[in-house]
């Protein structure tokens, strides 16, 4: 086997074909930029989406080897309370509904499950814990936060979304510019939709920006954010994203 390394082997990411990328994604091998590329492709390329599903279907029987296990009874209670709200079901509100449901889910989950301690500390002025049994009646939707630790450093990027004003705050304190690269922030919608740029970060600053409705509708707890290293000016339109240097996921505060 080891002598076959010349027989057309895709050992670089550029050399592999799309069906192979779909297989890698289905198997769960991808992370970082590969994952961004795959998710982006799924939204824009029906053949690719079909192939991903093809692999999913073929791999699914393997799951029969996994021993079944019984979850605790609270899981169903939480699901039931999350779906309890009656609401209209029409095509127009699907996107909105998905977002609302996510909110309901988050408020039904215990604080321990919903928030990472680190994220709570970001928002210490507000209440730091929510009793699981207390229904959360939010007059204004709660902010979403994501912490992105920068690999190999003690520094992290804090990203906060304020739904009331559709504003995004990106705190890049402790980061410094190298004058050769820019770093671009990306949103991976929780529903598997297209990857969206949240813009280039400004090292050493807290930056505030207003987001378009196209982006805010994908901002919900569970949506992932990635920071990639790009040429100055951000990712060129025709290039793949650069290496991922930090990642995190939004959760409700």
């Amino acid at each position: 086997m080891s002598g076959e390394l010349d027989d057309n082997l895709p050992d670089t990411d550029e050399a592999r074909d799309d069906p192979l990328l779909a297989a890698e994604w289905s198997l769960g091998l991808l992370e970082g930029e590969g994952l961004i590329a795959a998710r982006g492709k799924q939204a824009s390329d029906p053949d690719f989406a079909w192939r991903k599903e093809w692999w999913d279907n073929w791999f699914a029987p393997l799951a029969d080897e996994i021993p079944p296990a019984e979850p605790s009874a609270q899981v169903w209670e939480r699901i039931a309370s999350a779906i309890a709200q009656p609401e209209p079901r029409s095509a127009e509100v699907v996107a909105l509904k998905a977002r609302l449901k996510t909110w309901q889910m988050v408020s039904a989950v215990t604080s321990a499950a919903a928030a990472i301690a680190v994220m709570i500390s970001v928002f210490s002025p507000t209440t730091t814990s929510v009793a699981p049994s207390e229904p959360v009646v939010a007059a204004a939707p709660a902010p979403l936060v994501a912490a992105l630790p920068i690999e190999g450093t003690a520094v992290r990027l804090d990203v906060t979304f304020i739904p009331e004003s559709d504003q995004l705050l990106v705190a890049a304190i402790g980061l410094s510019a190298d004058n050769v690269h820019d770093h671009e922030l990306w949103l991976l919608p929780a529903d598997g939709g297209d990857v969206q740029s949240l813009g280039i970060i400004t090292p050493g600053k807290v930056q505030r920006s207003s987001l378009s409705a196209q982006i805010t509708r994908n901002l919900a707890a569970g949506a992932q954010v990635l920071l990639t290293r790009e040429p100055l000016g951000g990712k060129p339109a025709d290039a793949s994203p650069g290496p991922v240097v930090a990642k995190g996921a939004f959760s409700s505060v």
Partner: protein
Amino acid sequence: MLRLADGDKTALEEIYHATRVKLFGICLRILGDRKEAEDALQDVYINLWQRADRYDPARASPIAWLAAFARNRAIDRLRTGKVRGGAVPVEEAAPLADEAPLAEALLIDLERNAQIHTCLGALDERTQIHIRAAFFEGKTYAQLADQAGVPLGTMKSWIRRGLLRLRACLEASERA
């Protein structure tokens, strides 16, 4: 599933009761932590409730679709870095209640089951081991390479070569 798309809540409850032990087993295996696995499981059914219309009965059996869906969600969760991950030791898996709901009846399409095993079994053993570790433990290329003590590019070559052969074998079986 069709009733679900129409917004029938009792349909979701029935599906939950019929499938929870299987899907929880999958989440637990990937995440290696009961709490995380329960959160992932909850996420799966709530998502299912919201997006049952995405399920296409012509394409896959409901349980195969659900199993893949649960596994994908668990891996998403693993990749957000909230959990350390790793396969769950067998002893940690919760004992099953006696009325073990339908675990046997949930066997996914027997024919496809046999075929994927045949095609996987045709790969060399090393490749099989790595592909299985990716499937069952949610390992990335980097983690597999690390584990095996080989360069990342080598691991990618091994697995991609295996996946190409697997695809050829599965496609051949579809044409048969």
